[in-house]
């Protein structure tokens, strides 16, 4: 597993990006932050597009930048690909021409998914002979993603790659990214301002604010950190649970998982029996009951213990509860908290609708 080590200072007008961060490039690293937080600037520094940046930048064994030694590897010699916030397709080439441009400059000798694989996964076949100017916004973005993937990079930088892509295409693209990420060990750094997207996709998360790293951790842990939530307004944040696939129910099309030995059902077929997978549970989708409810359509009822309660100034309260070794975040109203007289240490039941769990 390669490490990306960043120690960078960049000034752009009044904005300053100052970042010291070592990132173990495993899976998908999400970068989250408000508009203007410096997300794009960070990717540009990594790609070597900001020649005014000073500091050092190393990827594994390779030193890409070391201002002290006046060392600077130009962008085209860094083994990475970049999906920009805008499509940036070459207007003088057709879609196929854009893809060929990338393929002719393949960076690594490592195996990569084939052209067909990528073209199919992004549903580009009917577009191949067209000019970028004749494509719709979403189509352009998909071509840009395909083009980046086809250079067989050792690191993929993506700047809000899904913003113009609709649900249906996303549903095809995300597994493709996951698969490439895992099968070809391609680490991805992905910028997004959708916490939802990052919660589902990213394994680690870097939080930027005003050009500085506020926090960096693996996604589940970061998402369950209460102190960060307000700050970065990750209102959708939830918890990510490790689970094991136990059984698939053909009749009802449900997969039964075990979380710390407790059964939990999710819709559809997820993983293979015995496999370890991840579950994302939105804090707002979890309810708390003090006694075990009956006659309820909510099928997943986990016994848990409250470990922390934090009341906000507004209507909400957050609480953390542990199920075995794992922590689940719950968001409820202060009114409920008071009505149920919940206290730290109390044993409760967590209710999770099967339909609101994202498993992957």
């Amino acid at each position, binding site marked *: 597993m390669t490490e990306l080590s960043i120690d960078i200072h960049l000034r752009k007008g009044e904005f300053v990006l100052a970042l010291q961060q070592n990132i173990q490039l495993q899976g998908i690293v999400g970068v989250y932050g408000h508009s203007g937080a410096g997300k794009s600037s960070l990717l540009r520094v990594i790609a070597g597009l900001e020649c005014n940046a000073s500091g050092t930048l190393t990827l594994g064994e390779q030193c890409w930048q070391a201002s002290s030694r006046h060392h600077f590897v*130009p962008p*085209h010699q860094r083994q990475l690909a970049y999906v*920009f916030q805008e499509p940036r397709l070459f207007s003088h080439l057709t879609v196929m021409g854009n893809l060929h441009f990338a393929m002719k400059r393949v960076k690594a000798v490592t195996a990569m998914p084939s052209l067909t694989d990528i073209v199919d996964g992004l549903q580009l076949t009917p577009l191949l002979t067209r000019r970028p100017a004749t494509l719709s916004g979403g189509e352009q973005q998909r071509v840009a993603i395909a083009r980046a993937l086809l250079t067989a990079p050792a690191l993929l930088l993506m700047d809000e790659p899904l913003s113009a892509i609709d649900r249906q295409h996303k549903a095809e693209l995300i597994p493709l990214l996951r698969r490439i990420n895992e099968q070809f060990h391609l680490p991805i750094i992905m910028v997004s301002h959708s916490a939802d997207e990052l919660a589902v996709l990213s394994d680690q998360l870097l939080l930027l604010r005003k050009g500085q790293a506020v926090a960096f951790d693996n996604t589940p842990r970061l998402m369950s950190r209460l102190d960060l939530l307000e700050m970065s307004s990750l209102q959708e944040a939830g918890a990510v649970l490790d689970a094991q696939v136990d059984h698939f129910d053909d009749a009802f099309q449900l997969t039964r998982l075990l979380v710390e030995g407790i059964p939990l059902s999710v819709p559809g077929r997820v993983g293979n029996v015995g496999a370890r997978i991840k579950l994302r549970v939105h804090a707002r989708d979890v309810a708390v009951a003090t006694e075990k409810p009956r006659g309820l359509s909510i099928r997943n009822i986990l016994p848990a213990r409250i470990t922390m309660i934090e009341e906000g100034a507004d209507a909400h309260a957050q609480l953390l509860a542990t199920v075995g070794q794992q922590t689940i975040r719950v968001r409820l109203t202060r009114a409920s908290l008071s009505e149920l007289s919940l206290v730290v240490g109390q044993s409760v039941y967590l209710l999770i609708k099967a339909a609101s769990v994202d498993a992957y």
Partner: protein
Amino acid sequence: MNDWPSLWLTAKLAALTTVLLLFMATPIAWWLATTRSRWATALDALVAMPLVLPPTVMGFYLLLFLSPQGALGQWWLELTGEQLTFSFMGLVVASIFYSLPFAVQPLQASFRGVDNQLLEAGATLGASPMDRFIHLVLPLSRRGYLTAGILTFAHTVGEFGVVLMIGGNIPGETRVVSIAIYEAVETLNYGAAHRLSLVLIGFSFLVLALTYGVNRYFSLLSRDPVSHD
């Protein structure tokens, strides 16, 4: 009078000058378009200088420079054993000097117009600066090359002051059509002047219309319809 040798010479001179000049102007224009050096402004202005000297005067200075006693002429003589002045190659060299601004200026303007965002994308896709230049900047500057090519070509066809000075009006070698027309006018041979002018205009018109036509055809193919005004 047989016009063909002159016409052929003109075509050869204009075509060769245009091709060579586009090659030579490219690095100059690119440097000027991208540099932040403070000498750039001076070079900008310098490139336009061949234009401000009257052609015969420019020709006079070039004659000094290209003659066997001159710097370039001497070098050429040692290299090839041939005299540069009063030869076809001399005309080409002189035309290149004289038409330099017509090639550099439009190229520079169009290089500056190339979207830097696309070049960045090219770089991250693994294209080296030279690779980017050849596969992105050049095709995206097609219009600049068209303008540069047409101005250079047309100007070389019509220009005669320099050519007359450097070439010496030698039939079949340096006597291009423009000189022939000039001569006809000077010797009050108006009939020949009219006829040669028509030939020259017809020939140039054909070459240029063809170039423009091809270009229009391709840019129609690749362009969205212009908005309704």
